[in-house]
């Protein structure tokens, strides 16, 4: 019984030490703020996701066209808007454009 309680107490002390570790390592940090992405970061991420989505869609469209899943007419109708969407996202991600914090207006696939 005593051994069990001692082991239990050791476990509790170890847990407390682990929990207190961030405070023990940095007793007086210069900045304790948990930073979060700002509006610019959020916009950038949104644009990156749109860019990736458009590029992946283009790749998939090419592949589906090759395998015969997409007809020539459908391919011609779909590829233009997708290219434009990818180009718009890429342009908006350029450093100078980012500095202006653009409102994303891209609508993939129209």
């Amino acid at each position, binding site marked *: 019984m005593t051994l069990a*309680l001692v082991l239990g107490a050791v476990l509790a002390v170890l847990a407390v030490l*682990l*929990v207190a570790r961030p405070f023990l390592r940095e007793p007086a940090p210069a900045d304790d703020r948990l*930073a979060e992405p700002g509006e610019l970061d959020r916009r950038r*991420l949104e644009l990156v996701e749109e860019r990736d989505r458009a590029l992946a869609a283009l790749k998939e*469209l090419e592949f589906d066209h090759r395998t015969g899943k997409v007809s020539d007419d459908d391919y011609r109708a*779909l590829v233009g808007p997708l290219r434009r969407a990818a180009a718009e996202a890429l342009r908006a991600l350029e450093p100078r454009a980012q500095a202006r914090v653009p409102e994303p207006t891209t609508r993939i696939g129209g």
Partner: protein
Amino acid sequence: MAELGRAALLVTFGLVVYALVAGSLAAWRRRRRLALSAQNALLAAFGSTLVAAVVLLVALARRDFTFQYVAQHTSRSLPLGYALSAFWGGQEGSLLLWLLVLSGYSALAVWLNRRARDLVAWVVPVLALVAGFFAFMLCFVSSPFVVAPAPGDGAGMVPSLQNPYMLAHPPMLYLGYVGLTIPFAFGMGALLSRQTDERWIVATRRWTLAAWTFLGVGQLLGAHWAYVEIGWGGYYAWDPVENAALMPWLAATAFLHSVMIQEKRGMLKVWNMVLVSLAFLLSIFGTFLTRSGVVNSIHAFSESPLGGWFLGFIALMTVLTVALIYIRLPLLKARTKLESLVSREATFLYNNLLLVALCLTILWGVMYPLLTQALRGETRSVSKPYYDFFLHTFGLPLLLLMGIGPLVAWRRASLRALGKTFLVPLLAAVVTGVALIGAGLGGSTPGLLTYTFSAFVAASIVLEFWRGTNARRAIAGESYPRAFTSLVARNRRRYGGYVVHAAVLLLAIGIAGSSAYQTVREPVHGLRPGQSMEIAGYTLTYRGLATRQEENAQATRATVDVSRGGSHVTTLHPGKNWYPVEQQTSNEVSIYHDPRNLGDVFTIADQIDPKSQTLFLKVLVKPLVNLIWVAGFVFVLGSVIAMWPDAVEQRRLAERYAPAAVSAGL
């Protein structure tokens, strides 16, 4: 050492409460060190829960009957493997397993995503809330560390649980159930932190797939256990406990599909939050069903110390989840819309509606008897015809959609393109249907439809691989094997998914074959040694009985020779086991796996009269049933392909999220 187990659980409880309170405060007030401290509390909670689990395992291995739990679920004669499996054989141990898996998963998920600190800051309190509930139950409601004066021997284990499948089936289910908490926590974390981009989906993609795979494999193991152990000749009985695992699996299946639409088109953000929450809540509901006693009767539920707490927790989580999704609706607006009702995303949507409809009808089938008993005091049951009707109504179109979906392009598909891609699968379906009718197998409409649709799906899967390989050859000028390999390697989720579809196909064929086309012979008269019976082309000749003593049971076995067309094919030994400690008898079935039709000759010794050597033998011939178990292996293969890390994809995602992490102070 029960004190150590109790102390460890109290430490866990303290840690998760701290993680909940400090984590919430840190995320709300944006305190970096406090957030890290809360994360560490979750990591430490896994350590202390592991200590508690080891204490219980040691007690089980040593048959320490001072632990009430050990005395209630094991005996001295119980083999060590089964004694250890008693860890999840009872209520308290099961709850400890839940907490152990949850704290382990939480620690791993938080550690793996430690760089996404702004998102994880809110994930920690959500995980801590769920862990806190289970730690509370174990500390104050249903502890496995209650001690009492040791009896001379334990009560033993229910004979049907003394089966190798019980060593793997419950842990697999729990790995699945609990695993669904991780995508739920990240989804809620994304809502709480207002980070509703795709990061939470990317972070939990593999977690969802792994949990879903464990849950699927766990169910198949359970079905096989029921098949070889319970002794009624079936593998799934729409039992509430079985349905408890099926419902979250169906919801997670819908989520795995719909999440792809969000990734590819930026649509269905609200729906995905609803699905991930539904899968999580159903996994808690499943644990409630199996652990509260409510399945046996409403009275057992009211006497159970767990039922009320579980219901309260489910209600709390439901209210919190619905409120949070509602509050964050403006952040979940889709930026694109469905362009055509004939497109890949539309077929995914139909698949989602059917999966959720099937899930909810099963939920209603489980709830209805409980509600009528609770509200009106009437005993009602929802049986096989109800479930079969909805399985056919929703399951058959789902099977067909599995073949249609891959053939349809994203965004929109013209009739001309569809006609071209559908031609071969349609021909395969028509030829199969006509051949089945011609062979006189058109008597069962669900069976006929299943096989016809299966032919369509099989052809569409083969075509996808064939056309994809040819396209790769044309692009890169590779050989067929090389083109095939790089096709799969470059898009593991898609082609892994097709392999999983092939597994579902095998499952459907196996279920239809073994149910719609099975033959059953009930034992009207007893057989005496030397007498025979005929069934579906097989002759079974009873030779006699033998009794032997096993480690923990007395086994009586009949000897039955099986022949076909005058040739001996095998000898079967159905019988019964008598467990003296548990004072129970179990049916021990004997099965011949026929490689000709991938089916089984399944024998059950319904009754045995040792004095007169009379055997009442029930026999079932189940064509294609073994495809169900083969499906399990194919399912795992497909899941592993889909989950296998892709270095190129990982680099791309790291590049996508790295700047956000940097500016978030990481």
